[in-house]
């Protein structure tokens, strides 16, 4: 209990200052909406389904993007990590593509793919792919040679050693790559939704800002923050579940 209070005390102080400042009109409502109005808006939005819908859409995009990025990232990480030749062919391309700010390519993605879900997923995958791929690759480079040798002595073939030794050894690396990819994906999703979308929390926040509904805007921001936190916890739990030896 005390630990919980200690953990959250900066938030509690911030919220108190906010509520006191706005309730006593020390801070104008053109700067910050009253905190209780934000929660009222949140409550209403979740109740009538509007916020819930936008949240669900955004969550679907991020999770979908992360799943695709994971599959592609692990595949390319294994490919480049296991084959010296493909490492030489593909790595410059993969690393070079990272140098581009993906946000600058958003208009291009819209021209090519429109405003639908494909575009959102592509945009998210374009940032989430790299940390997962490079961690898979680095993990392979760091597989303990003595584990491979022990397995060879037992009579395993190189192909079997991939499953027996290498895949389990890189799992913690994949998880930490995924953990880095989560906030990048959330950020990129918000940007994509702000630039062009018919739904999602990013779209809700930018429209609320333009129409001066600050309480609604903050409700969206609070939900985005919670989403980031929740996804991080989820990846952590996934790590505990898939790598129980790695505490």
């Amino acid at each position, binding site marked *: 209990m005390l630990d919980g209070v200690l953990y959250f005390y900066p938030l509690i102080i911030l919220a108190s200052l906010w509520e006191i400042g706005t309730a006593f009109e020390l801070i104008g409502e053109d700067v910050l909406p009253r905190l209780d109005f934000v929660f009222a808006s949140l409550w209403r939005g979740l109740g009538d389904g509007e916020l819930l819908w936008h949240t669900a859409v955004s969550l679907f995009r991020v999770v979908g993007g992360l799943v695709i990025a994971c599959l592609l990232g692990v595949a390319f990480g294994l490919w480049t990590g296991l084959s010296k030749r493909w490492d030489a062919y593909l790595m410059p391309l993969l690393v070079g593509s990272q140098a581009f700010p993906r946000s600058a390519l958003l208009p291009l993605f819209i021209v090519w793919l429109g405003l639908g879900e494909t575009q959102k997923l592509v945009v998210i995958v374009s940032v989430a792919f790299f940390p997962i791929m490079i961690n898979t690759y680095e993990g392979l480079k760091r597989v*303990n040679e*003595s*584990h491979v*040798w*022990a*397995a*060879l*002595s*037992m*009579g*395993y073939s190189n192909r*079997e050693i991939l499953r*027996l*030794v290498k895949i*389990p*050894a890189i*799992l913690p690396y994949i998880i930490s790559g995924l953990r880095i990819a989560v906030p990048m994906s959330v950020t990129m999703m918000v940007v994509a939704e702000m630039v062009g979308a018919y739904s999602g929390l990013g779209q809700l926040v930018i429209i609320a800002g333009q129409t001066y509904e600050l309480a609604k805007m903050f409700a969206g921001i609070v939900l985005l923050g919670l989403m980031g936190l929740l996804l991080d916890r989820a990846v952590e739990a996934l790590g505990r579940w898939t*790598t*129980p*030896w*790695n*505490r």
Partner: protein
Amino acid sequence: MATQGRLAVESVSKSYPVREGAVVALSDVTFDVAAGQFVVLIGPSGCGKSTLLHCIGGFVELTDGNIRLDDSAIRGPGSDRGIVFQREALFPWMTVEDNLRAALRPKGITGAEAEELIDTYLKAVGLGESRRLYPRELSGGMQQRAAIARTLIYQPSVLLLDEPLGALDAQTRELMKEWLVGIWLREQKTVVYVTHDLDEAVFLAQKVVVLSARPGRVKRIVDVNLRYPRDRRDPRYEEKREQLWKLIRDEVRFD
């Protein structure tokens, strides 16, 4: 007495390419190991003793020379030789019993037969209670015992031990030395054991191969004909220790 596990190391050389030229790790190393014999390779750090062990394991290719196991040349790793490393010898992502199970699978031993063997070997190394734990939940000494059990269980004729007690604290190391003698006497397997610890050499070995500083050459082969379990108060024990130390001290340099 064991009938298999006879090793012949014949003029083995090993050099590694580095940025400029090559480093010669081993140069013209020759010695024999009888079936069932306990041989210790000792030498200053960097003398190539671990490399030599890895060559016997077949993990590292020789630059020159030959290693034969029971008259056939070694051409790579095989389950006739089992190896235990200094640290993280077990697969950390598997429980103790799964580690042993993994060692049996390539032999086609599964099911009830495997469970029975796992039971026997874990009890033999005193880990019957810890079978469902992950390696990191075990002490260093327990991990090494489990690693040795995992190697013994697939019945190699030669046991390669690469500084197996090197990461343990002094008291655990003492107990493990006595325990190793017991296991070796019971299993009747050839052991090639790498260490830089003089007491380990005299306490364990029937034959000590002393290597010189890099490039590793055989400096002397010392037989230790003392009865097991060895008594450190025996003056001959101290004599052997002294003899080995004299051989090695010329080779040890401050880096």
